[in-house]
């Protein structure tokens, strides 16, 4: 039976923990292409170059009943008093469907931008962008 997926099926996991209040995430996968077209060719030709992965997510700034804040772990990777180091990577699993693990992309990434603010009549939300480093750990789309 055919199946479609919606935000109800989606998840964003930090390591193995599901981030509770995420309203959306997106992933961008890119491939650089190196042109190999030569004189006399009638069509352009390419060879694959370097892959890159990046994405974004929106999180509600949210304190759970046990006083843990799911958004903070990600935000503190960039919003910190000391400089960002090579250890400040996060393992993000972008899950499209359920808890089966069959529709996942797991990426090791740096948080490259954080935008957070408070507005009258609106929830405090944080928008983050991340840049993948290295190969994907999991890709089971």
């Amino acid at each position: 039976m055919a199946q479609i997926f919606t935000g109800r099926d989606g998840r964003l996991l930090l390591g193995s923990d599901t981030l509770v209040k995420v309203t959306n995430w997106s992933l961008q996968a890119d491939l650089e292409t190196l042109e190999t077209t030569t004189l006399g060719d009638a069509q352009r030709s390419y060879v694959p170059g370097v892959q890159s992965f990046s994405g974004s997510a929106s999180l509600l700034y949210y304190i759970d009943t046990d006083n843990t804040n799911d958004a903070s772990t990600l935000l503190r990777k960039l919003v910190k008093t000391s400089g960002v180091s090579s250890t400040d990577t996060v393992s993000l699993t972008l899950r499209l469907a359920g808890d089966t693990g069959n529709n996942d992309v797991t990426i090791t990434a740096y948080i490259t931008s954080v935008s957070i603010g408070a507005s009258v009549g609106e929830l405090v939300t944080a928008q983050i962008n991340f840049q993948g480093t290295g190969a994907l750990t999991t890709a089971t789309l």
Partner: protein
Amino acid sequence: MSVYLGSYGLVELRRSSELAEKLSVINPGDVNTSRRRFSFDFDSGFLNSGDQIEIRSTNGANLAFVDASGWVVNAVQNAGHWYINVDELGGIRLYNTFDKAIEGLQSQAIVLTSIASDIPIAVRITNLVPRILTQCSYFELNTTREAVDITALGDQFRSQYSSLISGSGNFRAFWEYLPSYAKQSAGESPHYLLQLAVRTEVGSKFSAKFYLKVGSESGTKTTYDDELWYEIDGIITQAGVNFSPENAVEISADFVTTGPIRLLAKTTPSDRLLLQDDGEILLEQNAAAALLQEDIV
């Protein structure tokens, strides 16, 4: 179960202002003692007939242009409150009651005296007294609670979170520019709502109570005397008047609320003063006698 008719409701308005103070100067030539009228520089619409204002000298000098008979203490002071009537040329007469100010008769105005030098003043619209909006035929007050969607990925049902409360509504009233003496001797005329909408300098702010139920006037204390009302501060956003040969002239005004919206009630108290444990307060001289309020049924 009861059904209430609109005849139980009414609107009580209190004039308001968004401007703290207006600074100006009264020159000797601004005071016309024979006509009991004076003026100072203010923009059209800043003051309306019926407004209660405070005039204060900013250099501490007495307001010598107001005769001693115009003061509560029968002596000239450096600050005072009066009701005003503003004529078409911007001339101001002072009165000691609202209805006299609306009527605007020279003979009832407070006597003025000549001054020899300029008096710098600060004028503030105070309007402390609420008045019933006369000839009001309809009012509507809506309260709205915004809800913010906090549904997250993986949720099966939408989740909402309570956010800000706002209000809006409108009045309709049969147009009248003088208080309706037959109904309410010191009521606010509907024309004031039209004036309020075009006040540029002090804004269109007002305070109001919208009564859902007013007490009966039977003199008998029962639950019929309970009163329930909304209390708001509002800003007139639109006012209009329609003329047609076959209908009474009616004005309408839309408003939005600013600040808190309160739904209040005044219920008739029990006739006996009761202790917290429901016991009565008994007299020491007679253990069988309870302490009663004066208006016992």
